[in-house]
Each structure stands twice: as structure tokens, then as C-alpha cells.
């Protein structure tokens, strides 16, 4: 492990990051920039974000604390933290390779072989190799443990048959982290699952784009028809797929492997909503003179402030003694639901203008709010729905029994 930097060293690095993002951040490339990696739809957006990630990596501000021998910066994690802070400060675009850097990378660094680390890590940092996630299936989404895509071993290969769906960046990806069934006789549904680092650009794998509620493309259905992959793609051993999948969730929460840095989802700037409200009119008067709107906006401010402070409180063990898993587990539920409500609320400010959508010159803020509201569901559904999050909080933080 790299040494903890002195305050002076850290400041020097932070100043350099600040200067770099100040100079290099493009906020308006002339087309809509995705707010999340799940939103990437046009070639233009994809190419821009891929280039951007490579640039940030090459400048030394992504993967700064990942091991040097595989392409990282080999520095203490504090360095990455200040670099990410600089990105936020200049409102830099997202990092596109979320599944690679956020999920697959940490898993490989933690449990992978030397060869796997050499093969996969650098390419995901440069965004040369885009990764996707093949967990959900048409018939099994929330019930992920029931995934049925078939992986049958033949010699030193596995033969894959079945389908994955809602695969974000599936048509762009070179690799997929894949959850497949290798044992149909296992004593329970979880034990029959295995985890693969699966190549996408091979015979037998095809994708078909799915149009999203926003009218754009971005995720796909992935079809596997006698697709043959090397047995070396198996990760973590046969029958351990479920625990590998669950491990990726731990990385998301920042355990063990140092975070790669950057962000895959842009946080909504709530002050923008307050601004929007302040600039909106109702019955010839400022909207925030309306007592109902005032009260609602105030409650949202209370909610936002609580969730922002929760992030600090999570790191204060003295305020986390009772139900220590509570705050970490509720975070996704509380945050994504709040953003959905808030963006919906913001449409109500716009009066007749709420009728416009992205692409019309009369739309408020180029339709940003409509797009944000519609896209907010990606987070209340993707990554485990809010209902499933409530089950998780209930069962793992409050100790309530499972629903059967």
C-alpha cells in the first residue's frame, strides 16, 4: 500500500487536478450529455464520453489508487479522492465504463488471477474495453437468483444459450459480467449459478436495441445461441456465481478495493430546482409565494439536506451504533426515490411549458427536467427496484422475516 500523503503533497496534487479539470472540462459539446452511464444512446455521446474517460485516465486522475502493474497510478487513495472532488467541482462529465470500473474491475483486482488482471484492468481504465452486465433476464429480474441462461461445459469450453435483457451498453461492450446456470440439479437456485467474464464480440452472441421511455436507445436485449466461450472465462469457480454477483455489490459500497474514482451518475444539483422555482410564475406571482409549493419545496429541502448529511454521518461510528447497516442500505432507496419525486415536482413549476419536451426551442432548460424525471426511473428500477430495496432494508437492517 502506498504511503499516506502529507497535507502538502495532497494539496499539490489537488491543485494540479483543479487546474486540469478547469482547463479540460467540456460541459457543452453541442449535444446533450448523459447524466448516467445508462443514458448513453447516440454514437456522438458514446464517442465523446469514451474519449473523455481516456483523457482523464491519461492525465492520472482515474484509477490513481489502483495498482501500477496493471495500469493504475499506484498512489494512496486520498489522491484519487481529491481528483474526484475536482471533477465534481468543475461539473465534469461522467465516466462511461461503469460496469468495468465499478464492478468487474474491483472483483478482478480482489479475486482474479495475475493473468486476468493483466488482461482486463488497463483496457477498462482507458475505456478501450467497455463492459456490460448480463444479470437480468426476460423472465427473471428481481428474482435474480432464478436466472436461467444455460452454460454447458463441453471440453474446455462453455456453450451458452438463452437471453439477457436491459443490458446497458450491451451493443458497445467488449466484455460482459455474466450470471449463468451451470447446474440445473443443484440443491437450490443459487448454487446452480456461475459467473463469467464473457467476450461479447463472438459468434452466437447478438444484441437488439430497445427503445427507452425517453425515446432514445441505450440498452439492449442480448441473445446467446450456441455461443462458445473458453472455460477460462469462468470466474470464482462453478457454483459460486451468486456470491460473485453479491460481491460486486459490496464494491459498490466501497469495501476493500479502493474506488477507481470519478462517478458514473451525475448528482442532481438541487439548487437548480430552487432557482427554477424562483424563476417560475403562478397567477402572476412568483411560484414560491404559493403556500402549497412553498411547503412542498421546504420539505424537499429537508429531505435533501438529510440525505447529503447522511453521507457524512455514515463515516461517524459514534452516530451509527444502533442498526449500523441502516444508513448504508437505505441510501439507494432514499436517494433515487427523492430524485424521482423532485424532478416530477419540478415539472409542476413550468405551467404550460410542462407540455414541451427535449428538442423544442420553447422547452424550459432544453427539456432537462422532463428528461431527468423520465430517466430517474432508471435508478428506481435498475440495480434492484425500490421495492426490493425495501425488502433488503427490512431484512438486513431491521431484522424482519423474508416474504415468501
Amino acid at each position, binding site marked *: 500500500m502506498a504511503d499516506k500523503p502529507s497535507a502538502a503533497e495532497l494539496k499539490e496534487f489537488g491543485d494540479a487536478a483543479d487546474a486540469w479539470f478547469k482547463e479540460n472540462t467540456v460541459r457543452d459539446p453541442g449535444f446533450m450529455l448523459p447524466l448516467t452511464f445508462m443514458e448513453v444512446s447516440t454514437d456522438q455521446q458514446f464517442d465523446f464520453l469514451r474519449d473523455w474517460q481516456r483523457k482523464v485516465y491519461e492525465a492520472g486522475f482515474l484509477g490513481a489508487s489502483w495498482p501500477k502493474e496493471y495500469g493504475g497510478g499506484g498512489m494512496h487513495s486520498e489522491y484519487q479522492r481529491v481528483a474526484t472532488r475536482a471533477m465534481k467541482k468543475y461539473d465534469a462529465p461522467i465516466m462511461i465504463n461503469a460496469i468495468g470500473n465499478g464492478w468487474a474491475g474491483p472483483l478482478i483486482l480482489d479475486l482474479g488471477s495475475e493473468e486476468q488482471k493483466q488482461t482486463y484492468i488497463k483496457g477498462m481504465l482507458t475505456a478501450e474495453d467497455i463492459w456490460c452486465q448480463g444479470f437480468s433476464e426476460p423472465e427473471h429480474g428481481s428474482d435474480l437468483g432464478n436466472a436461467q441462461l444455460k452454460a454447458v461445459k463441453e471440453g474446455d469450453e462453455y456453450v451458452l444459450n438463452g437471453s439477457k435483457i436491459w443490458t446497458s451498453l450491451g451493443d458497445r461492450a467488449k466484455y460482459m459480467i455474466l450470471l449463468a446456470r451451470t447446474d440445473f440439479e443443484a440443491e437450490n437456485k443459487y448454487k446452480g449459478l456461475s459467473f463469467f467474464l464473457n467476450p461479447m464480440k463472438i459468434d452466437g452472441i447478438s444484441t437488439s436495441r430497445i427503445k427507452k421511455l425517453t425515446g432514445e436507445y441505450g440498452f439492449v436485449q442480448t441473445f446467446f445461441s450456441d455461443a462458445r466461450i473458453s472455460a477460462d472465462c469462468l470466474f470464482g469457480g462453478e457454483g459460486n456465481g451468486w456470491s460473485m454477483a453479491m460481491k460486486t455489490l459490496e464494491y459498490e459500497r466501497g469495501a476493500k478495493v479502493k474506488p477507481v474514482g470519478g462517478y458514473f451518475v451525475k448528482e442532481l444539483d438541487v439548487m437548480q430546482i430552487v432557482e427554477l422555482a424562483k424563476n417560475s410564475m403562478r397567477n402572476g406571482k412568483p411560484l414560491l409565494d404559493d403556500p402549497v409549493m412553498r411547503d412542498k419545496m421546504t420539505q424537499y429541502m429537508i429531505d435533501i439536506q438529510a440525505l447529503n448529511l447522511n453521507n457524512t454521518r455514515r463515516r461517524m461510528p459514534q452516530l451509527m451504533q444502533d442498526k449500523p447497516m441502516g444508513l448504508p442500505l437505505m441510501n439507494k432507496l432514499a436517494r433515487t426515490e427523492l430524485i424521482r419525486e423532485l424532478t416530477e415536482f419540478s415539472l409542476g413549476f413550468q405551467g404550460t411549458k410542462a407540455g414541451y419536451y427535449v428538442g423544442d426551442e420553447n422547452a424550459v432548460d432544453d427539456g432537462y427536467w422532463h428528461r431527468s424525471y423520465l430517466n430517474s426511473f432508471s435508478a428506481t428500477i435498475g440495480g434492484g427496484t425500490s421495492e426490493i430495496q425495501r425488502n433488503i432494508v427490512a431484512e438486513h437492517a431491521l431484522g*424482519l422475516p423474508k416474504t415468501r
Partner: protein
Amino acid sequence: MDNLGNIGTTEEQIELMDVATNFCRDKSPMDKVRALIDDDLGYDPDVWKEIGELGWLAIAIPEKHEGVGLSMAEVVPIAEQMGRNLMSTPFGTTTLAAQALLAGGSEAQQAEWLPRIAAGCAATLALSEDSGDWDLANITCSGKLDGDSIVLSGKKQLVRWADSAELIIASVKVDGNVRFALIERSAIGEGTLRRESIIDETARSFELTLDDVAIPADALFDASRTRETIEKIELAAGLIQAAEMCGGSQAVIDYTLEYLKTRKQFDKIIGSFQALKHPTVDNYVEYEKARTHLYSAAYSWGEQGRGEVAVRMAAAQAHSSYSRAADRSIQFHGGFGFTHDCDAQLHRRKAIFDGALIGDAAYQRSKLASLLFD
């Protein structure tokens, strides 16, 4: 918006949290809470004495007045644990009276009363009147100069623990201006206190008839400090009540969880039904938000601007989350939930009472809106 505060703790706060957690749990088990409901005084005098001996009434009193010299931030964990265990005593009103003295009392008044309070003497405030207005300046009780004394008139309501208090600080109008009058126990005659029936059966409250009560002419806070006294009272009361309600929310959620984990219907533990499980998670999320706000308010205590925003956010969130969690607790206990024996009602009633004292969640939000948007 730069009037939003941060969160943090002090070492003393955390030490007090540990001590208060054990003390309140041990000294206020539920059977005792229930027994005290039928007790005249409403609290255990031995426990009250111990609270004084622990120095808890001295926490936010400066050292020069024989206090500990900490701040309201360190009172928060104690009030939280008291709320959690429904431990009702004059702790809150006494702390509040000390804060009022610090904001508005003269050197002499502070020197006379703060050391006594720090040593364990109970005190309270008499603020509310028949209008029911939460605006502390909207009052009609009055005081008239008569020689070297002031003769008071009018009626004060919701004077908590008045029968135990050695000192009552009452708001009255003198020459049309709001002033705070220091009324000693000895100045109050027979029949001036009427015990009120209040929704929170664990607390005690009185109507105080001021008519013909006379106090020395110098027993008023300085006129120039009325405004800051009102502000201090509002904020200190908001913080104390937010802490109690936060502790109460935690308790009523735990109480509900206990039932959800043991009661069976249709051969299933009822906690496995999502119609109960999911709202309980939502209530828990709201509680954690309230607790985050509480410790942010404690941290921001004393910061101009931020302090008030943080306290009102804490009070609003604590009141709405406590009310909701206790309301659902009644429902989720079924027929038992409708009984006096079920603890859910104790919490539901206390949430109503606490909101009545300081202003409910909607009132806090209306105050906040001005601070945030205007």
C-alpha cells in the same frame, strides 16, 4: 444556499450519550413509566435528584455560574434518550429556563438563578395563552408597575411541571411590550395552579392564573433583550423537543418491529407481509433522516442563521417522523393497538403534545420557507 449546516459530534456529547443511554433505560422501564402516569407528581423524585447530581442540568450553563460550560449540543443526547424511554421530568423545562436566563437575564438574575438550577432546582416557562398561537409575542397577559412591584394579570397555559418549579419565567406585556417576568414559587398563592388534562399522560402541565401575583419591579428581563430571548427559547425548545421526538421515533419503531417479528396470522409472522414491512422501512428511513438533522442541529447550535435552519429542519422532521411512526404502530398492532396497554398510544400522544409545544412540522416548515427562499 449557504445557510445549510454540517454534522459533527463532540467527545463530551458521545460520552453523555453512552451514560444517558444506560441511565434512562435503567431508570425508566416501561412499568415505571406506566406507574407514573397515575402519580400526582409524574416523576420519581429520586431519579430527579440523580439527574441533578449527574450535573445534567448544569451542562449548558457557563462555568462562572457553577455550570459545566458546555452547550445545548451536549444536552441533545440526554434529551434523546429521555424521549426514547419516555422518561418525563422537568429536565427540559429547567434547561430551557436556564437558556432563557442566559439570553435575557441580567448579571444579577443569572448569578442568582443559574447556580441554583445547575445544582438541581427545577424551573419552567409560562408562554402559551388561550389564543393557541405559537407566536411567542402574541400574548395578552400583562404586568403593571405598582410602587416597587409589578402586579400581573391574565392566564398562562401549558406551564409544564409548574408544581415542581422553584422559578417560573412568564411572558407578559408591560406598557405594550413583551417582557419576561421571573416568578418565584413563593409568589404564587393557593389556587393559582390548575392541573390541566393533557394528551401526553406522562407529562404534567398547569394553567397558571397570574391575577394578583406580584413580583419585585426588578424581576423582569431587560426590555432590550426580549427579541433575542424569544429566539433563544424557540431554538432551545425546538432542539430539546426534536431530540425527545427523535428518541421517541426510535423507540416506537423498535416497539413495532418487535411485534412484527413475533405476531403470527395466516400461519405467517406478520412482518413478512409487505403491507407492513415496506411502510415500516419508510418510517425507519424518515427516522434516520430526523436523527441526522438532530445531530446537525446540535452541531450548528449557536451559528447565526444556520443554527435556526438546522433546528427547524430537525424539529419538522422529528415531528413528522415521530407522528407517522407512532400512527402506524397503532395500526400495525391491530386490536391490541387500540388499547391503553399498547405503548404505541403513549408515543402517538407524546408526538401530538410535543408538536403543540413548539409548533408542528407544518409550522416549522413555514418558518423555514422564509429562511430558505425569501
